[in-house]
């Protein structure tokens, strides 16, 4: 079986985001970029499935500008066998990403696609679900445990009410939650080896997908500053303060 894993280049989780002064977006100039953490978990899961003997090949795919080749190389160093870049300059919205991924899926015929449940830049949480619908195959989102047996996958999902276990027929789309696994560190010798692994580039034209986005983003603004708390002397003052604000 072949596993396809999506990898997105995003602003590093620990970077304090700055909005551009004109509100047109987030300042990414000189900002540290990393693999979307959920995608790193997706790749780790794929590698573990392969290491357990349940898959032969892991292919990482990223939709983005040439800069995302850096994250693909990291994926190769973690242990992926091949990488595919779908070249797009500028932002990619979920439906566009899902359409492009569908074309790659049709080409590669994977038995399993693992994506992050969302990318931490736009927090859309849509691409996996959209790909599943376009592809006409089952989806198992928010996975915290994945077990493969023959033609099916048993997936534990993290849902609002707790955990839900479902079984899906393969091929399927799985999206990862935080607790699925802890991604490995990248070994330095493997970074050398990754330089020799294949990285193919496809264009949206070649895939026959329009890179145009359906949603126009109007404006970006930072969240309002949190107000300082106030100290109250006793329970009565607390009750009064809450009442005053209509909270009680």
């Amino acid at each position, binding site marked *: 079986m072949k596993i396809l894993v999506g990898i997105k280049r995003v602003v590093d989780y620990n970077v304090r985001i700055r909005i551009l002064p004109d509100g047109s977006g987030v300042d990414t100039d000189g900002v540290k970029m990393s693999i979307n953490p959920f995608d790193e978990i997706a790749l780790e899961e794929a590698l573990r499935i392969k290491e357990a003997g349940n898959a032969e090949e892991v292919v990482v795919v990223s939709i983005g500008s040439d800069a995302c080749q850096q994250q693909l190389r990291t994926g190769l160093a973690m242990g992926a066998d091949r990488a595919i870049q779908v070249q797009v300059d500028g932002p990619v919205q979920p439906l566009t990403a899902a359409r492009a991924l569908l074309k790659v899926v049709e080409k590669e015929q994977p038995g399993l696609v693992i994506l992050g449940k969302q990318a931490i830049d736009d927090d859309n949480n849509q691409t996996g679900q959209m790909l599943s619908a376009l592809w006409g195959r089952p989806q198992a989102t928010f996975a915290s445990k994945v077990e493969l047996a023959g033609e099916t996958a048993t997936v534990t999902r993290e849902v609002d009410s707790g955990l839900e276990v479902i079984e899906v027929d393969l091929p399927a789309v799985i999206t990862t939650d935080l607790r699925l696994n802890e991604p490995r560190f*990248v070994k330095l010798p493997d970074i050398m080896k990754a330089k020799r692994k294949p990285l193919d580039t496809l264009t949206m034209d070649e895939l026959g997908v329009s890179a145009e986005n359906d949603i126009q983003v109007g404006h970006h603004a930072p969240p309002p500053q949190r107000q300082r708390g106030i100290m109250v002397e006793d329970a009565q003052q607390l009750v009064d303060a809450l009442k005053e604000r209509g909270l009680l």
Partner: protein
Amino acid sequence: MNKPALLAGLRRVVGEDFVRTDEDSLAHFGRDTCDLFEPAPSAVVFPDSTQQVRDLVLLANDQALALVPSGGRTGLSGGATATRGEIVVSMERMNAVIGSNPGDRTIECQAGVITAQVHAQAESMGLFYPVDFAASGSSHIGGNVATNAGGVRVIRYGMTRNWVAGLQVVTGAGEILELGKGLVKDNTGYDLRHLMTGSEGTLGIITGATMRLASAPGDAAVMVLGAEQMELLLPVLERFGSAVTVNAFEFFSEQALQQVIEKHRLQRPFETPAPVYALIEFEQANDGDVDAAMNAFEQCVADSLLVDGVISQSSSQAHALWRLREDISATLAHRQPYKNDLSVRVSAVPQFLAGVEAFIEQNYSGFEVLCYGHIGDGNVHLNILRPHGMGLEAFKKTCASISEGLFEMVQRFGGSVSAEHGVGLLKKDSLHYSRSAHELELMRSIKRAFDPAGVLNPGKIFD
């Protein structure tokens, strides 16, 4: 003075609510993180101004009291431990950041400001306070100055001393001094600010500190590298040092790593077995830096200096790798390790480490000995763990006598028996291995000049 009168005197200075004598407070504030000494203070006081500190010192002079200045109590040498009925002067309430001055690139703090808060304040100014270590979430800036704290970025930025722009101090005689005044240049005689730095509360109580800030460094990447022997790590540092800007170069032994991994259920950096590891943090201003570091790594592997290594791919991973080093001290704490904090010149580190390894084998065969430290600064922490079943006193005695051989070796190398943790109570009997009799005599006369009645931290550093 009898106890009620003493307490009444203290309360007059700091106020009714800020003198504590309950058992919990005495046990808690009576010692620092070195738990080899029994705390026995008479009271703990919490002044909230330089004036109150001064009044406490004057009271101490008047009534022949002994005061123990107390910061975040993360010290590792018993410097903030009160074993003889002293009054602990906790600086906890003097925790205000007084002001920041972007033009001077300084921030001015009361002594009780937590080190991590200085980091945060500097960051909010787009600048950087570089002294950092595993206890910076609890230690005070005043405590850092009093111990001249080092930490993990000394190799690039030096010790706390380099960043002290000005100090406000109450001397043992009760005089208030304004030292340095934030000036960059001031060659008007002896720089008393530097005498206060590292004085461990024996010359004056620091009530305020103006700290210099550095430009914020670029992104950093972290590698953990495995080697067959400790002494190979210095040539590794040389190769990386000429390839990239090194922010930190730390090391730890496999035994130390195992303790941290087991306790916190962390991920091993890699499976290849290695007896020692180096952690290197370097500035990653552009892709070229990572390539240069990769080349250095390849060279080291080709020269059989390293067996394997990993590199962080995100700041979360950098943080995860740092934990392997930074969590060691806290992980071992419950075993009450006997700590040696030794340093030699960086160029002497390989021979010194070879000597240390041989020494451990010969003298500590029955003990678990864990090594880690700031190897890039020539600084090695040797932690001897108490065997289960051995009493604390017997353990302390054995370690102290074994340490003598170690200190003789340090002396032969022209090294220090306390690289960054200070002398406090723990190392005062060993001071002569690093300082000449004449130096010690000069230190004593300096102490007398600042604190003629000997009210500040008596019995610390020397008797």
